[in-house]
């Protein structure tokens, strides 16, 4: 059985297809038609709903794409949909602001925007344009041109605006705690399919031993496309998101230790503290909804050649703690990827943690991502650079690219052209030429092979200029 709060009402489900998405459940089973389907792939935001989670007393709210979230993953959470925002027939301040600012035209994107805005308002003291862009970058509107929505997202912060969710926060939190304490097994089974939602890592680990063919599901931002785009079913799913401790982000003396179930949203602040350049990358990785659900573990486990974190992790010399049953082993992230979508992970093994060494003082880290659109777009190429220069000499260098080969991998020739050499324009030119030996990328709808290589080479030039020059910025993304 799965239990959650449907706004304020406890709601339990059992005996329903464990592969069903939250959006289908809302629309087809509960006949709540406010949340819309625009793509069923997490790209448009029309289906956005908000999950409330309790951390003991207070509530935290996050926007998610209901189209690629499985219903079964909702256990112990509060689900808020657009239907819940009105209070006593009064529009919620977020809704009122959208009306006042003429923020809707056809209205189809509007419920999704309203929910993303609601979450933004709940998590933010004062609005900024950058903050609004980040919070709403995963909501597409084809009608308005967004300007009135930005205006509404500012107006909704008017201080005297009342919000019933704040008033009921402690009650909600209590209700959620009660669900957590109830001892029935958390799983959903029907049609010969099962979704397990283990509460501990040990339990998760043994489930995987018992079900070697099971698929792990974390945020589901990638895996759910199996259901919604390819209409495939998965018989046994094991959810990582409820396993105690698997989503922690810990700082030790020498490393950053990230649980595989930690979302981007959760890991971001610590990562950015040590690697400021990751801020831009993470903010351009998917959308806020995706970052609220998607995990770094899933990004690695997915083994996609175009994932953005693998080149970063490789360049940073990160390691994975792989676990099978009670045994763990630690490998370099670079050694995880073998061939296209083939990894060195064994049957019943899973990624438990990701370990990133803390940077040394002389280390420079940069990551550059190219996509057609700045926000919420998949990389044509993504280059990560970790370089240590001492007295004009390159002491250490690690360069890795995504999108350039069938797996994310290091640019060995390129690195060699730089290592122990002068940090000079000339050597950068040599390294750029050498990069052509490292990769022979493919052409696809994102870009041609020629462009992939060319721009990947030019990254080195940008790197050189950025590390040497005093220019404010050399990137359009950071120009203000």
């Amino acid at each position: 059985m799965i239990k959650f709060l449907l706004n304020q009402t406890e709601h339990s489900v059992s005996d329903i297809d464990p592969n069903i998405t939250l959006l289908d459940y809302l629309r087809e089973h509960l006949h709540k038609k406010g949340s819309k389907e625009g793509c069923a792939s997490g790209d448009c935001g029309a289906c956005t709903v908000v999950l409330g989670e309790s951390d003991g007393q207070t509530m935290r709210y996050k926007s998610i794409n209901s189209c690629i979230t499985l219903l079964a993953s909702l256990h112990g959470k509060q689900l808020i949909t657009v239907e819940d925002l009105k209070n006593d027939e009064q529009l919620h301040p977020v809704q009122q602001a959208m009306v006042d600012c003429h923020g809707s035209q056809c209205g189809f994107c509007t419920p999704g925007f309203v929910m993303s805005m609601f979450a933004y308002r709940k998590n933010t003291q004062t609005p900024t344009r950058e903050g609004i862009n980040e919070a709403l970058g995963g909501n597409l509107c084809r009608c308005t041109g967004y300007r009135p929505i930005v205006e509404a997202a500012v107006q909704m912060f008017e201080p005297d605006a009342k919000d019933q969710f704040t008033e009921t926060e402690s009650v909600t939190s209590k209700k959620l705690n009660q669900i957590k304490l109830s001892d029935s097994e958390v799983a959903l089974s029907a049609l010969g399919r099962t979704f397990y939602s283990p509460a501990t890592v040990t339990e998760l680990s043994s489930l995987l031993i018992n079900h070697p063919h099971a698929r792990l599901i974390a945020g589901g931002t990638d895996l759910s496309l199996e259901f919604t785009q390819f209409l495939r079913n998965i018989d046994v799913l094991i959810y990582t998101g409820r396993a105690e401790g698997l989503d922690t982000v810990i700082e030790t003396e020498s490393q950053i230790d990230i649980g595989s179930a930690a979302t981007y949203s959760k890991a971001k602040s610590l990562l950015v503290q040590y690697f400021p350049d990751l801020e831009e990358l993470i903010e351009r990785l998917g959308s806020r909804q995706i970052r609220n659900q998607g995990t770094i573990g899933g990004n690695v486990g997915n083994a996609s050649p175009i994932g953005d974190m693998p080149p970063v992790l490789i360049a940073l010399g990160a390691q994975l703690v792989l676990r099978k049953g009670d045994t763990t082993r630690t490998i370099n992230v670079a050694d995880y990827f073998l061939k296209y979508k083939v990894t060195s992970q064994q049957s019943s093994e899973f990624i438990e943690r990701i370990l990133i060494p803390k940077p040394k003082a002389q280390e420079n880290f940069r990551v550059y991502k190219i996509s057609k659109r700045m926000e919420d777009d998949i990389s044509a190429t993504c280059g990560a650079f970790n370089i240590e220069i001492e007295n004009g000499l390159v002491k250490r260098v690690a360069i890795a690219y995504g999108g350039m080969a069938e797996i994310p991998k290091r640019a060995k020739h390129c690195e060699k052209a730089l290592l122990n050499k002068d940090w000079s324009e000339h050597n950068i030119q040599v390294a750029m030429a050498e990069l052509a030996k490292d990769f022979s990328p493919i052409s696809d709808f994102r870009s041609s092979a020629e462009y992939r290589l060319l721009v990947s080479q030019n990254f080195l030039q940008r790197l050189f200029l950025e590390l040497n020059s005093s220019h404010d910025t050399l990137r359009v993304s950071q120009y203000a």
Partner: protein
Amino acid sequence: MRKLPNVAQAGDTSKVKGLPGQSQKHESAHKHVSGEACYVDDQIAPANALHAYVGLSTVARGRVTLLDLAKVQTSEGVEAVLSLQDVPGHTDIGPVFPGDPLMVNQGQEVTFYGQVLFAVAARTHELARKAVKQAVVEYEVLPADVTIEQGLENNSFVRPSHTQQRGDTSSALKSAAHVLNGEMQIGGQEQMYLEGQASLCIPTEDGGMLVHTSTQNPTEGQKLVAEVLNIPMNKVSVDIRRMGGGFGGKETNANQWACIAALLAQKTQRAVKIRLARADDMLATGKRHHFLSRYDVGFSAEGRLEALNMELSGGCGISPDLSDAIVDRAMFHSDNAYFLPTAKIVGHRVKTNTVSNTAFRGFGGPQGMVAIENIIDNISRVVGKDPLDVRKLNFYTDEDNRNTTHYGQKIEQHIVPALVERLERTSNYRARRDAITKFNKTSPILKKGLALTPIKFGISFTVQHLNQAGALIHVYTDGSIQLNHGGTEMGQGLFTKVAQVVASEFQVDIDTIQCMPTRTDKVPNTSPTAASSGTDLNGMAARDAAQKIKTRMTEFAIKHFSLKEGEVRFANNQVFAGERSFSFAEFSQLAYTNRVSLSATGYYATPKIHYDRDKAQGRPFFYFANGAAVSEVLIDTLTGENKVLQVDICQDVGQSINPAIDIGQIEGAFIQGMGWMTTEELVWGEDGRLQTINPAAYKIPAIGDTPPTFNVELLPDSPNVEATIFHSKAVGEPPLMLGISVWSALRDAVASLADYKLSPSLDTPATPERILAACNDVRNRS
């Protein structure tokens, strides 16, 4: 006697809410934000309803040697399977010309990837989609033309080519100081309405059909459903309350899904709903035409156009659909705002084995416009002037009779020059130009660009008979009003504006007017809501209907109270009859009890327009809509990444009926046009399969793409000189073309690499990849 409702008495003289000129909220705004606005797929279908889905072809061209649906039939939950032989009526649903088979059967030829082969109806949407996958289909694959060039090479056209000509371009080219020639690829565009195609068909008695469908063209849907079912049109009613966006993509492309659902509903005698998954929607429905433009242009030493030979080849896909009119409109706009002393514009309708392209906001106009703007920019680099100065030099003007288009329509009102002057001033164009030149001198990697581009867009359907509209208004005995007209609401605010018109006629609050779904059984024989004509046509028709009722009420009052002409007034939610005053409701009741009809139809046909296509001469447009935009951009010359920093727009909407809605249209259209020019790239494989079939691959602008500074001004004090509704001007399509300024600014930024001496060629969409290639090209050439 039936009791009449209690109504408020006269005396409440508060200001009338929602009159024209007020920024009345969208009539559904409060329902949009609360999720209460109901779209086709949100309707709770009748019990027992089925869900339909379609099986699509997987080759661009080939003979279907096997279409085995046995496993589909037995797939879980399937209640009916439909293929071409099951269709009792017409099997071609081409809207103007034939060429669009409803489905392709075994033995027939598939002509594009994503063509419908068959359909199923099953218990759920999911089961229907899964069932479709069980089909066994085999093809004998045939060679396919995928690109415009291939089609041109094979002389493959969906309709005959057409020429508009003035003067002798060849001698003018010979005598011109400069001659340039070139070629440009102009990309297509996916409508990407957020709500995909959807229909719900419910069988009615007498073999009829009630069709709820997300369509811009209810009447055409009605006609085609009737034809495929082989029943008369009077047995089919089409109903559409609102669409989640249309943009032209639901003008003809909504029909097929309605027809298929209707056929399955007829077959099963159960309600049938269909909605396309995004990827199939993008695969199986038409887009904006991509174009290839080739030209020779002759111009003076100052940069004045003297001769233009232009060939505009539109990639139409497999069938005519609306391509004749679309390529015509591209040709009609190949002058944009510029006088062409001699011109020969040839338009080709190229046939390719790709989905048939269709209407999209601007309807060919944008492609014609960008083709000429490309030329103007190129000329500027040759003559060494700011492109804005070359634009100004070429504007239509009455001086020397430079005031007639190449198709013979006289420009009667020269709005563009003054509007551009104004925008040049308000946007601080010249000072910014200087600042940008300076910035580019010192910035090594990042470069800025600036451009001002104008638009002159012709308003009217170029197919003359479409320029008509109908309306139906009822006034009830409680004073509430029901408003029906033939226009459809897709977000553009049409219902709101027409309601404002009616509020104004009766001088009553807009809240007393209920906007009804568009239905073919309320208002028949309507034109599609397209060509920016919605308010112009339906506003006039609704006004006509309202005036009829008002006239009857007035005549009644004169008689009843023995008054003279002019002694009856509608004002402040009241009716004044001589010394007496009534609330509108009271007076409606009085009129009713005295047997006055409170219901009327209205009608409107656009005057003054005519066009002789054989001669390519006439006055196809009732008037022109004008505007201009200044865009400032930043590019990275190492990667081609870019950003729009500031946009200033001035648009002429005549006397605005609703400034907020008009500004919303302008902003939205601009961003859509910007997307068309930059990130929105359709990519087909050599096999003719569209590869960009979801929003993960096809990138429309997101919120961060909206420029941080975005100023929109409605040109003040500019009532339409034509007698349009409240002297307003159409606004739906024209501002889309303002997005061209972004592309022009990007080229300007690239041109800075060669000190503005070279004109970079930059096909659209200008993706980072194309921008980087342009940078490198300019670097290599300089």
